[in-house]
């Protein structure tokens, strides 16, 4: 087998080995540094003299002399002062390690498809912890609860909340809440209660574990963890409904967990819980959840309102969003409200308004930053889990641990089945057995449980270490066993996968139409149903809220139009990228043609027909070419050099241009024909045909034949045509600069157009469509669509 591998792809296997070795070497190197530095830093191990400490102490020592005689030493040309930068250095090292690991896994081809990333990361953490321990050092307590809850968790939740698909979430909110609240309660009490019962059994020597600690343990361990769910579900591409069910549950059960945790922790000291406490607990739950949401919503509205005024300071726009969200989280945590729900509410509330206000680049920045932070956080969390496992301390008790694991599984299954039975009575689209299985199986535990356990007071809970061991075992079990097997099971059971759906405009229009229809029917029936309230909310939104929170004139733009623009541009970009299919109108160009889109086909040039309609038709075609080239260029340039892309003053010019609605519409109309006609070029038709035939991606010579058409210098930095186009143009235009370094420059159109410009209406939505479609993962397309 190995021989064959070698024969087939000697370079491949070698590079595999190389990469593996490289990773290992890096790992060891990093760990080595961390070890020595970590050891030097900890004050307990001051006995150890390390090189780092040595110099430091040496220098310090010379100043300590009471008889301060100035002993002349050689001026230290090079000195090592680790202590100075220790903390940031270690943090950076961990982050670097996490990122390198992530990189490494995706380089190794088959590993990432068999084993989910989270498992690999935990293993890496174990290795790191193991190495540190082997070296005899004390493993640093990395998964400190403060660090976890304040630094590592928020980015992940914010990312989840910001990109939460609102529509499926709201449609299934009843089900999600049932699972989150009732399900978690059931799990907590079932596990806690039965554990207590088991502990009371004679042979286990566990009778000192009382009821309340057991219940506390149950509540800690019963919460489905959003980080783990995200990590695993992301890779299995399950259908939207199941994804949102499990994921929504993991987010919303935070409130329940918080309340139960504090309740049991408070009263573990007292030793008993009265019915009054239960009532208080329920009230507390309502306050925690609703309060969290309210805090989040307030901050979200603040962020939206702030973003209304940022049109002159685009650079710090993303900062506002992050800071407001983080403050929402911290404020909620301050009052012991549910921080997770606050963050979700903030992100979800903020999003539609902020997106309408901020510039395209800020939008991209926000998106990428969120994804980056959440990715790093997630990686770190799993690695730290591994390290913390090695760190211990552990108190292994076979009975306790195994009973925990079994009970968690059993209670989850019973809970899901029972709840689904009840829920299905109220759902229109019922949950099938397969769905139930996936929901039950997807209930993964993660680092939140561990951190909560870590927070427990050692004195109040003498069996804390045993709890921690059990929690870790449960986490490992769910992440490794369930995480690894869920993918093959999904395939085996033929669960519906996520449809890589491109929303068509038909769907969009018809869905809106049906919404209106159903609202109307509900009104006729006199029934205040789902659609009625949704419609009311939308009207309220449109009438009052949007006016306050969205800058300029943009609030009037209907969603359908925005969606339509986006689609058109995307398709144009795709078309142009895929080979610039030449389409010629089969009918008169001023009318809309009904041709289907077939990007790769080159129909026979019918340039003769295009020529007669020279004045009007050609003008349209020219604009079309301009537009398509503009997008193509933006598309290409974007990847290398943002700075030479349209600089801000030109961006405004571009906006002015765009905003000229007249122009826009004509262009769009032609856009839908997907025609790029060579006939616009004043060369002879034969020449253009030849040119295009030889290189469909070739630049187009653009000649404006009339006023009102801006000149565009196109620097097609494409692999096929490395030459840049020399600009053209001009009949009565201001001299266009011949700055070829500046990839794309727009001369705003002449005075006639300027007069009609709509001040301040930047229409960033369109801008967004034009460039940077963003990461290829089109999950983001499923935007919340407030009709």
């Amino acid at each position, binding site marked *: 087998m190995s021989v064959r591998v070698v024969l087939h792809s000697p370079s491949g296997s070698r590079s595999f080995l190389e990469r593996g070795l490289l990773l290992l070497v890096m790992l060891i190197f990093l760990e080595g540094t961390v070890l020595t530095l970590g050891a030097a830093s900890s004050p307990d191990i001051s006995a150890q003299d390390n090189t780092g400490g040595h110099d430091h102490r040496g220098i310090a020592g010379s100043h300590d002399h009471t008889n301060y005689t100035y002993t002349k030493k050689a001026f230290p040309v090079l000195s090592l002062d680790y202590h100075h930068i220790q903390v940031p250095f270690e943090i950076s090292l961990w982050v670097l390690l996490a990122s390198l690991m992530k990189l490494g896994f995706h380089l190794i081809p088959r590993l990432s498809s068999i084993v989910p990333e989270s498992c690999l990361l935990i293993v890496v953490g174990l290795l790191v912890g193991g190495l540190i321990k082997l070296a005899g050092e004390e493993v640093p307590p990395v998964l400190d609860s403060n660090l976890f809850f304040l630094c590592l968790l928020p980015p992940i939740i914010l990312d989840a909340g910001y990109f939460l698909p609102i529509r499926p979430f709201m*449609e299934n909110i009843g089900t999600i809440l049932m699972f989150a609240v009732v399900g978690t309660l059931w799990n907590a009490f079932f596990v806690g209660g039965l554990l207590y019962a088991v502990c009371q059994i004679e042979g286990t020597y566990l009778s000192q574990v009382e009821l309340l600690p057991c219940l506390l343990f149950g509540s800690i361990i019963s919460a489905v963890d959003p980080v783990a769910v995200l990590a695993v579900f992301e890779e299995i591409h399950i259908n939207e409904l199941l994804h949102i069910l499990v994921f929504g549950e993991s987010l919303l059960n935070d409130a329940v967990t918080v309340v139960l945790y504090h309740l049991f922790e408070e009263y573990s000291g007292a030793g008993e819980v009265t019915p009054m406490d239960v009532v208080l607990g329920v009230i507390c739950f309502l306050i925690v959840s609703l309060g969290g949401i309210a805090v989040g919503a307030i901050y979200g509205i603040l962020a939206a309102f702030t973003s209304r005024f940022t049109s002159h300071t685009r650079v710090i726009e993303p900062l506002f969003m992050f800071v407001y969200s983080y403050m929402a989280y911290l404020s909620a945590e301050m009052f012991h409200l549910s921080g997770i729900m606050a963050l979700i509410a903030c992100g979800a509330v903020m999003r539609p308004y902020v997106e309408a206000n901020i510039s395209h680049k800020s939008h991209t920045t926000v998106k990428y930053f969120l994804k980056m932070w959440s990715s790093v956080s997630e990686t770190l969390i799993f690695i730290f889990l591994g390290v913390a496992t090695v760190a211990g301390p552990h108190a292994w008790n076979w009975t306790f641990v195994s009973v925990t694991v079994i009970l968690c599984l059993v209670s989850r299954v019973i809970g899901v089945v029972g709840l689904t039975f009840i829920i299905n009575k109220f759902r*229109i*689209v*019922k949950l099938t057995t397969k769905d139930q299985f996936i929901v039950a199986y997807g209930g993964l535990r993660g680092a939140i449980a561990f951190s909560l356990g870590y927070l427990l007071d050692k004195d109040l809970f003498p069996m804390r270490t045993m709890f921690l061991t059990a929690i870790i075992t449960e986490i490992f079990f769910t992440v490794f066993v369930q995480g690894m097997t869920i993918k093959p099971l999904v395939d085996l059971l033929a669960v519906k996968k996520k*449809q890589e*759906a491109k929303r*068509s*405009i*038909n*769907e969009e*229009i*018809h*869905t*809106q*139409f*049906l*919404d*209106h*229809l*159903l*609202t*109307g*029917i*509900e*009104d*006729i*029936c*006199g*029934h205040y*149903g*789902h659609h*009625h309230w949704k419609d009311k909310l939308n*009207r309220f939104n449109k009438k009052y809220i949007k006016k306050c929170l969205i800058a300029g004139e943009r609030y*009037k*733009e*209907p969603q*359908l*139009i925005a969606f*339509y623009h986006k*689609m*058109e541009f995307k398709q144009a970009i795709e078309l142009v990228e895929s080979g610039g299919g030449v389409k010629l109108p089969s009918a008169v160009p001023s009318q*809309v043609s*009904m*041709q*289907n889109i077939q990007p790769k086909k080159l129909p026979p040039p019918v340039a003769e027909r295009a020529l007669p309609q020279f004045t009007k038709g050609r003008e349209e075609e020219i604009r079309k070419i301009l537009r398509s080239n503009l997008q193509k260029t933006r598309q290409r340039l974007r990847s290398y050099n943002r700075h030479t892309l349209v600089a801000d003053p030109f961006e405004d010019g571009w906006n002015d241009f765009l905003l000229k*609605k007249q122009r826009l*519409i*004509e262009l*769009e*109309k032609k*856009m*839908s024909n997907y025609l790029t006609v060579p006939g616009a070029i004043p060369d002879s038709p034969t020449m253009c045909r030849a040119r295009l035939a030889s290189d469909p991606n070739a630049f187009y010579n653009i000649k404006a034949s009339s006023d009102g058409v801006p000149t565009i210098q196109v620097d097609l930095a494409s692999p096929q045509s490395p030459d840049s186009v020399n600009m053209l143009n001009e009949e009565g235009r201001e001299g266009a600069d011949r700055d070829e370094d500046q990839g794309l420059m727009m001369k705003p159109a002449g005075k006639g157009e300027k007069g009609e410009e709509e001040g301040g209406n930047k229409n960033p939505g369109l801008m967004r469509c034009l460039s940077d479609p963003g990461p290829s993962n089109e999950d983001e397309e499923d935007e919340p669509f407030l009709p």
Partner: protein
Amino acid sequence: MGSTNSTLSKIPNVEELMQETGFTPAHIVRLYDRFEALDKEKTGHLRPQDFGAINRLAMNPIGDRIIGAFFSPGQETVDFHSFVRILAHFRPADKKRPKDPSMPEPVNSRTSKLKFAFQLYDQDKDGKISRAELLQVLRSMLEMQVTEEQLESIADRTIQEADLDKDDAISFEEFRKSLEKVNIDHKMSIRFLR
């Protein structure tokens, strides 16, 4: 129960109605009460003005189309039976119904729902949604917030996407195909009519 029975007895052919539409007696009664509330002049029939009196319906962009759907062509009034029959389209589908090819398609199946929606688009009842009809719908939904050219390009785009046999109009089959990913049963059902 007594009041239900007495109300039911007021309605002629109620058994047939229930079987045809699948509504339970409780539903029929509820709908009858609503019918009577709308029928201000107690004629036993509803006229377009009665529908128009529903305030919220007036705000609905396609309100007049919906009202129009209740009235069969040529008829000026709607009696209770037609009222219920139309509303029966919006019942959630019964999953457990055996597929009996000899029986006519139940009125709340996916196809029937789609057909109802299709008829709302297709006002001239020629079996196709022409470009003009689509433009009308778009115009009413977008409520004068966009220019005519934009509307036209959207309409063109829509037809282009859906039109498979290139007749510049959307037939029922094409309509159905374009909505195949949408869960019609979910989208076009009113829960309380179960």
